[in-house]
């Protein structure tokens, strides 16, 4: 069997736990105490364990809520549907929130966990932003040099270290209560959360080296969303009027806005 076939068949055995291993197994021989079946099972177990531990690390609250056994089953299903396509293990788990969403839609008995997609998304942002690239500080001197007739065409850029999220569930309280392992099942069963009257809005960001989260008013959130959508300063002014000036100052001060460009032109920073 050529090397290419060996590697491809081996990988298929690993990324598809129910894959027929007979063809690959015929290329293996008993070695010491290890039968060919055992040899394959060791690698399957190693890989499953490694991927599962990454998901446990990224999604601690989801794991606490679902319980270890159920969460581990989901991890296995996730690995089958989304085998790792990136050398960086920190990127494994990116699709877990979408996977959860689809899984919940298919299983009516899990409707009590309908908030899990939002919770998983929060946990993913919290993880991913920790590793995201740094932005340079906002350059006010460049902003001062923008010609008056260009100012309305300014497009501000949201920092790499900020993500926006909203939810109709009390997802922040749920996250806060479940990030660490609960000391007992009783504690877990006693949890109750009130549904918010309106959608909660927040941003997850990196403040220097520390991760942080801040709740936002609906207007603050809409402004940030509009900035993220690439609306120009002129469009933002028309839409948000007097709320805009202080909001922009605050976002720049917080490091949530990292730069700007003018209209369709490339970034002038």
């Amino acid at each position, binding site marked *: 069997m050529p090397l290419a076939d060996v590697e491809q068949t081996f990988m298929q055995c690993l990324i598809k736990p129910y894959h027929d291993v007979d063809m690959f197994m015929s290329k293996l021989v008993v070695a010491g105490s*290890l039968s060919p079946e055992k040899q394959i099972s060791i690698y399957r177990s190693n890989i499953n364990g490694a991927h599962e531990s990454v998901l446990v690390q990224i999604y601690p609250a989801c794991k606490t809520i679902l319980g270890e056994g159920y969460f581990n089953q989901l991890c296995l299903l996730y690995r089958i549907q989304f085998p790792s396509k990136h050398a960086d293990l*920190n990127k494994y788990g990116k699709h877990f929130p979408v996977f959860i969403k689809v899984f919940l839609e298919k299983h009516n008995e899990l409707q009590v966990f309908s908030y899990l997609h939002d919770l998983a998304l929060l946990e993913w942002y919290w993880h991913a932003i920790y590793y995201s690239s740094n932005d340079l500080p906002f350059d006010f001197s460049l902003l001062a040099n923008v010609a008056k007739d260009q100012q309305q065409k300014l497009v501000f850029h949201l920092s790499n270290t900020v993500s926006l999220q909203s939810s109709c569930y009390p997802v922040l309280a749920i996250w806060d209560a479940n990030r660490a392992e609960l000391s007992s099942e009783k504690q877990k069963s006693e949890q109750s959360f009130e549904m918010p009257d309106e959608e909660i809005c927040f941003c997850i960001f990196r403040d220097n080296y520390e991760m942080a989260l801040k709740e936002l008013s609906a207007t603050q959130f809409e402004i940030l969303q509009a900035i993220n959508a690439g609306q120009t300063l002129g469009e933002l002014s028309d839409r948000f009027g007097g709320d805009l000036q202080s909001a922009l100052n605050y976002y720049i001060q917080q490091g949530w806005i990292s730069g700007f460009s003018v209209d369709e032109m490339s970034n002038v920073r």
Partner: protein
Amino acid sequence: MLLQEKQKAPGPISGTGIGLRSSHVGEILMKQPDIPWLELLADNHMAAGGLIPEQLAAVCEIYPVTFHSVGLSLGSIDPLDFKYLGKLKKLMRQHHVAWLSEHLCFTSVDGFHSHDLLPMPYSQESLQHMAQRITHVQDFLGERILVENVSNYMKFAESEMDEAEFITALAIQADCDLLIDVNNIYVNHLNLGIDPVRYIKQLPFERVREVHLAGYEQKDGFVLDAHNNPVSDPVWDLYGQLIQHLPNVPVLIEWDNDIPPLSRLMEEAHKADVIKQQYRQGISYAIS
């Protein structure tokens, strides 16, 4: 400021170092313990921003550092990932990393990543293929890399040589250096029945530039190279046999799971030094 103050300049890689893991970074930077050198898992320090690049820079200002990577997938039939390699090269130049070591395995194929060290048949085809890829990597980096023997839980019917023959031929064909993990040899002895003493005797000692020591875990019907235990007595014995041929080789203590306090790792490193010293003295005595 991550450092209290810069106390020493990085020197050459010698003596017994420690594989630095994230749980010890704070202590390393604050206390700057007397450890001759550190090996960093390169893949864990390639984050684009945040604390990790800052920590890497700070550590490299104090200690001599080597990189150990798992993402090059040297045995894979996929094209080499020059983007990844480019990042490695940039970090190595930026932080004066002494050398890069990788593994005798593949980790990815067809774009799928196992994140595990997967063995290959020890065939002429594998040998030619891997030697060629190592040559490309070394040409790109402008320096030799070290290739490490791995713990292997599989034996291919198509293997045409044993692992010691394979890694020796590879080092010669690719003109690369070797990192010999003594625990991996012993794990392969327990699981696959290889002769560890014969393995060591076959090695091209002139190419062995680093030695790894770690602990394994007894599992159901096999032992796992889990790096979660002290170095076992039989591995210390094998280490003693190896360093008779390599009295000055840099040695590294690896401990990746159930990680103990840094002081415990330093005890293991001290033991490695003592054993090496005993062999040196033994040799001197025999000569005198």
